[in-house]
C-alpha cells in the first residue's frame, strides 16, 4: 500500500484541473498585463503538487529539467522578440500598436504573446527552483 494514499488520490484528481486553470488564467488576463505571472505560478503549483504527492523522480519525468531550462529562457525571448518586432515595424520597443495592421488587434496580440512569454518563464523557473530545493535537501 502506498505511503500517502490520500495525498496521491487527491493530487491525481486535481492536478489536471489545476494545470488547466493555470492556462485559463494565462489566456484570460482581460487583455491586461499581470496574467502571465499568476498563470505561471498556478501551473507550476500544479506540478509541484504532483511532485509532493508522487516524488521528485516522477515529476521530473513529467516535466524534464532539460526541457524547463530552455523554456525559461524562451519565455523571456518571446517577450523580447515581441518588443523587437514592434521596433522593426516602426514602433518603439513593445509598441504593440505596430504588431498588426489594426492597432487594437496589435495591442491584443502583443499582450497575449508577452504574457505568454512571462507565463512560460515563471512556470519553468518556479518548477526548476522547486526541483533544485527538494533535490538538494534529499
Amino acid at each position: 500500500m502506498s505511503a500517502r494514499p490520500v495525498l496521491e488520490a487527491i493530487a491525481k484528481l486535481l492536478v489536471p484541473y489545476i494545470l488547466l486553470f493555470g492556462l485559463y488564467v494565462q489566456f484570460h488576463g482581460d487583455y491586461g498585463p499581470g496574467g502571465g505571472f499568476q498563470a505561471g505560478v498556478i501551473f507550476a503549483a500544479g506540478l509541484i503538487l504532483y511532485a509532493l504527492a508522487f516524488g521528485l523522480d516522477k515529476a521530473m519525468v513529467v516535466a524534464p529539467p532539460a526541457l524547463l531550462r530552455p523554456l525559461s529562457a524562451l519565455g523571456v525571448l518571446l517577450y523580447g522578440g515581441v518588443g523587437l518586432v514592434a521596433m522593426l515595424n516602426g514602433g518603439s520597443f513593445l509598441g504593440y500598436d505596430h504588431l498588426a495592421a489594426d492597432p487594437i488587434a496589435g495591442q491584443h496580440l502583443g499582450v497575449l504573446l508577452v504574457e505568454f512569454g512571462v507565463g512560460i518563464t515563471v512556470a519553468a523557473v518556479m518548477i526548476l527552483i522547486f526541483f533544485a530545493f527538494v533535490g538538494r535537501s534529499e
Partner: protein
Amino acid sequence: MIHLLWLGASLYGFWLLLSGHWDSGLLLALGGASTALVTLMAWRMQRLDALSFPAGLWRRLPGYWAWLFVEIIKANQDVVRRIWQPARFPISPTMAWLPASQKTDLGRAIYANSITLTPGTVAIEIDERGVLVHGLSAEVIADLRGAAMDRRVTRLEDGEGGA
C-alpha cells in the same frame, strides 16, 4: 484511453465554465489547445502512477455526497455544541484503529477523507490494518465503529459493498 477522453472532455467543460467567453473563436481554440496540452501531460502522469479511478465511481458519487453532506451537518452541530457549551457537552478525546473494508488505495483514501471531512473525527493513519482515527468524543468513534460510512465507501469503490 477512454479514461483520457473522458478527462479531456471534462477539462474542456471546465474551461468553458471558467471562461464564459463562448463566442470568442480565439479563446475556444486556446481552450482546445490547453486541454490537449494538459491531457497530454495527464497521459504522461498516468503511465507513472498506478492509481486509477474505477469507471463507475463518478456515477455513484453524487448519492454518496448527499448522504455525506447530511452527516457533515450533524457532525458540525455536535462539535459546535461542544465548543460553546463544554459543561453540558464535554469532550472525551478518543483514538482508535478502525477496520476498513476497501480493497484499493483509492477507496481507503476516500474513506479517510470522508472521516476527516466530518468534524469531530480525523483520520491519522491508513494502512493494511485499517484507519487510525482521533475523535473528539467517544460517541463519534462509536458511531464510526457502526461502519455505515465504511460500507458506503466500499460500495462506491466496486458497486457492491459489504453487508
